[in-house]
């Protein structure tokens, strides 16, 4: 069964710190890896990664996929209190089949002033 593991489970940092969140997966094959941010409501989409070694960037957030290591990282630089959220990682299966997206349990990030 496909499995996605995120680490750490939770993290507390001070404003201005840089954080790195990890996502590792045990899937035989996948089409894309997704990152979401969830505050007190539904998850909102951050990044989609399909190719190894290519960094996706949006402001202070960036992410990269390492297919050799079966992992992805999400970096947040100069953290702000508004970055406090649960960050979810998910893998999208290859074509065919039932198209079930597998989510990790998430990393809870708290940024304190």
């Amino acid at each position, binding site marked *: 069964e496909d499995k996605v593991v995120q680490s750490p489970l939770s993290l507390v940092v001070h404003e201005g710190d840089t954080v790195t969140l990890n996502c590792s997966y045990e899937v035989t094959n996948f089409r894309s890896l997704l990152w979401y941010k969830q505050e007190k409501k539904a998850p909102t989409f951050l990044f*989609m990664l399909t190719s190894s070694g290519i960094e996706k960037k949006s402001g202070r957030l960036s992410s990269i996929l390492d297919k050799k290591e079966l992992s992805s990282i999400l970096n947040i630089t100069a953290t702000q209190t508004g970055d406090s959220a649960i960050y979810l990682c998910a893998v999208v299966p290859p074509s065919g089949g039932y198209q079930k997206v597998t989510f990790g349990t998430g990393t809870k990030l708290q940024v304190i002033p």
Partner: protein
Amino acid sequence: DVKVTQSSRYLVKRTGEKVFLECVQDMDHENMFWYRQDPGLGLRLIYFSYDVKMKEKGDIPEGYSVSREKKERFSLILESASTNQTSMYLCASRRRDTALEQYFGPGTRLTVT
């Protein structure tokens, strides 16, 4: 702008009641999903549907059923609500056979007393 809506944001029901949670998407997506989210357990898939009238059990289908009579609408039914079904319920949809992300609804926080 893509949109997934859910019938209620907050719901309080009594043990034994039949509960309907409805989800509507306006993106003509083939795949629709129901998840529950509990602290420490992440997103767990209850059921998903890959076409009208087609459904597949997810990881935790016990105590739930679903209905998909129209492409845009996916309903989750709790036949006889129990206190252990108190949770946040999230609906999502995505286009089949793509690498693209899932879009989530705002969630329904259900409390069963």
